[in-house]
């Protein structure tokens, strides 16, 4: 039973008179527990694919089944619910709220969880967020704002936010792109630990040395899947 399955996914953009085919007839399936890297030159459509799979964008045509359920036709609320409870995101530029503390940033998915059937009290939300921060080793900095944290620490806060709702899936878009190599290795180590606990991870990167750490590597060129390499 696939966690993710796509059939002939296409995504077109129009820029002026020109139609750009960002994703071309892409068929893919992802099993639970996989750790997948997506690489390709810039403009190859790797981020677009990640956003479509992460329900932040919609395909122009083709079908997408998440957990064997078709995604097309879901309402805004249902999509928001899936993003909230089923998946987490880690972005290259962290995307933390600058005015909120690390703790409040991590609590945010739980706060919106109330709109999707969540029943946690504020105290419970706080507790959950603190233990997520503990997992990424930042419990002692939970009251700091993002601008008081280093890049690596910010990304770890973002990861804590991604996992706080115990998602099945984590989508990471160049998570180490803005970090020095030491911090990058730490982040990758975190992903590997999460994956070992059963979380499925899809990570876009342009760094071959990072891509190689994944057990499965997808390589895109001009929007098409040109290589699907499985490791040992």
């Amino acid at each position, binding site marked *: 039973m696939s966690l993710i399955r796509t059939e002939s996914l296409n995504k077109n953009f129009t820029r002026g008179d020109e139609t750009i085919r960002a994703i071309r007839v892409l068929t893919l399936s992802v099993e639970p527990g996989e750790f997948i890297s997506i690489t390709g030159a810039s403009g190859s459509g790797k981020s677009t694919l990640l*956003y479509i799979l992460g329900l*932040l*964008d919609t395909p122009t045509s083709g079908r997408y089944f998440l957990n064997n359920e078709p995604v097309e036709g879901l309402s*805004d*609320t249902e999509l*928001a*619910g899936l*993003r*909230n*409870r089923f998946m*987490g*995101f880690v*972005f290259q530029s962290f*995307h*933390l*709220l600058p*005015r909120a503390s690390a703790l409040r940033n991590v609590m*945010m*998915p739980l*706060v*919106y*969880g*109330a*709109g*999707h059937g969540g029943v946690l009290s*504020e105290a419970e939300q706080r507790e959950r967020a603190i233990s997520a921060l503990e997992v990424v080793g930042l419990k002692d900095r939970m009251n700091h704002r993002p601008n008081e944290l280093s890049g690596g620490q910010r990304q770890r806060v973002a990861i804590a*936010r991604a996992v706080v*709702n115990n998602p099945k899936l984590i989508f990471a878009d160049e998570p180490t792109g803005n970090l020095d190599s030491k911090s990058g290795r730490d982040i990758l180590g975190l992903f590997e630990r999460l994956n070992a606990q059963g979380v499925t991870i899809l990570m876009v990167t342009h760094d071959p040395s990072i891509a190689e750490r994944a057990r499965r590597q997808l390589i895109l060129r001009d929007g098409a899947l040109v290589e699907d390499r499985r490791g040992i």
Partner: protein
Amino acid sequence: MGFREIVRLGLESLLAQKLRTALTILGMVIGVGAIVLLVSLGQGAKNYVTSEFEGLGTNLIVVQPGKSDKKTHMGPPVGAAQRKMTTADVMAIEKRALNVEAVSGLVLGTVTVRFEDAISNITVFGTNEQFPFILSVPIGRGQYFTREEDEYGRRVVVLGRNVVNELFGDADPIGQTVKLNESEFRIIGVLQPMGNKLGLDFDELGFIPTEAALKLFNDDKLFGIRAKASSRVGVDDAVAEISEILKERRDGEEDFTVLTQVSMMESMNTILNMLTYVLAAIAAISMLVGGIGIMNIMWVTVVERTQEIGIRRAVGARRVDILKQLLAEAVALSVLGGAVGVGGAVIITVGLYLAFPSFDMRAPLWIIAPAFLVAFVVGVVFGVVPAWRASRIEILDALRYE
């Protein structure tokens, strides 16, 4: 997202930019403040008129010759009567109306009053001895004239405080003789200082017996009749009795108008209420300006926080959550402005009351709830469009927005 969370987020973002928040709510502060101030002013005017009316006495009944439309309650035009109103009418009322405690005719005129070289022009009321029981005109020294003095039209006069001061200075005026026009009158009483009541300066008046006044002005008809009902509940009965008696004496024709203090006060209040509403409506226009200010700043907020909106949506915020959050901010702005406006207006009105205690324009309590309600509605009305736009932004566009 719960209500508390929404309020917390709204306040948090307003506190993050205190100066901007302060400038944004200024329009609301002025708008709500102006409404409360003007309503208080109208209310103050009403209180003032009411207390003036009541200061003149209670259960007052006014009879004027001439018939006027019942709805106006402000009396008929002077000189509209077909028949004269005379002292005989007053006697008939006094004899037959059971619910009338005191009744007097009223003759009005202006005279020149002289004592030696001092001259003053004053208004003179010609009344009978019952007049002080109808209108509160407290005697300071001496006494009001007696029934006998009235009946015989004795030339005696009771003067207001200022008239006496002008003519006699500090000297005792009681028993002195003054000239009203060319007739000599003996001063038998001086009023206590009363000041202005409903536009009439009682300190500048003189009172003489009705018959003396008719002789002085060479007239045979009354300006009107004033009466006092024996009790508050008896006012309507007294009015009915007076009407009946006067009608009978006019072969059934009702060419006179009977007004009560209550009805005059009511019509006065109607006018003042109208004035208050008009003032409040004008002030409401400034709320519009305040609302537009809020809408402006909400547009700026939405643009500035595009990326934040994207982030929130990515972690599971529904469109409606974004809508609620931004609407809450707009409402927080307008209600905050309303609170400051109400608070400021209350302080100003209390300050004015302390400075001028005779004019009580303290903000009435009932204005507070509607003022906040209006502020709330303005926040919703002017916040909903920017908030709705924010909720429609595509997540990816928002995330990429720099």
